[in-house]
């Protein structure tokens, strides 16, 4: 259920960052695998947290990042689907790094009807 807490935090953050007089089409969130976010639960929580607010109907684009692992032997970092992935060099002591991101990265505004870009 931490998805709902995150959703309410996102609503506050989005309201604080949305330019006045604009309507939101969607927001984009990047989440690291450490955060343990379940996408369906996150979507449901977002809908529940935004209903009856000025940003009701705004969609949530969730980008789930892969694991980023660091190899202590060859000092390289690589991406993987599983946390316990060995390095190509054969090392089995890889550790996760920068896997707990949780960031709002984009607000997408609705096009205003009758207003041209030119």
């Amino acid at each position, binding site marked *: 259920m931490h998805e709902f807490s995150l959703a309410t935090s996102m609503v506050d953050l989005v309201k604080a960052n949305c330019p006045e007089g604009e309507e939101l089409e969607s927001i984009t969130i990047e989440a690291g695998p450490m955060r343990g976010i379940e996408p369906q639960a996150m979507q449901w929580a977002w809908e529940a947290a935004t209903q009856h607010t000025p940003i009701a109907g705004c969609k949530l684009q969730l980008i789930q990042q892969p694991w980023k692992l660091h190899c202590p032997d060859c000092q390289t970092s690589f991406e993987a689907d599983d946390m316990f992935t060995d390095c190509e060099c054969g090392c089995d002591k890889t550790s996760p790094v920068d896997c707990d991101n*949780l960031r709002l*990265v984009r607000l997408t505004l609705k096009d205003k009807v009758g207003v041209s870009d030119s």
Partner: protein
Amino acid sequence: MDIPIVENVLKLNDEVAAINRKTLKEAGVYTVDLIGSPGSGKTSLLEATFKAIGDKARIGVLVGDLTTARDATRISKWCPDVVQINTGKGCHLDANQVRQGLDRLKLDELDILVIENVGNLICPVGFDLGQDSKVGLFSVAEGDDKPAKHPYIVMEAELLLLNKMDLLPHVTFDMDIFKEDISRINPTVQLMEVCATNGWINEWCDWLLAKVGK
């Protein structure tokens, strides 16, 4: 039109956590966020800690629970400085709840504050409360796979405790797997084996007292 932006989703929580951290630091209180699953023995550990530490340090406790004041009632037998925070439907404590709890404690009289988080190994980890360190509590009865299944607490913790060591002969628990998974997720985290109900917690108490120079 896209507006690129980079904001931490938990920015507001983190701002309040920073205020908590400043308040606690100014009062000279070392603060531990104790995180473990339901039934891992968080409250039993605190009861045993009070028994063992006695008057060597004054410890306050903030107890987070969905409902009931049972944990706070148990702890209040040992400690006058306990505040219950009921989170309702919330599965973790947030910095603002802790902020309100701090207002109800005489921080100047405390050496250590333990925040007993809501029983949960996932959600509490991501919310900074203003603590000095996070301590993760596992128990052998939960199985050896918990670090692998809940890497975030292993990653974030300064210290991990493995409780209910007296039950080890009676449960299926591979200590090698448990330790290997932990050292792979977080090679620097400290691990201590404890048993709260029979008072086998000296190493943990020494760690805690060392944090406040006692």
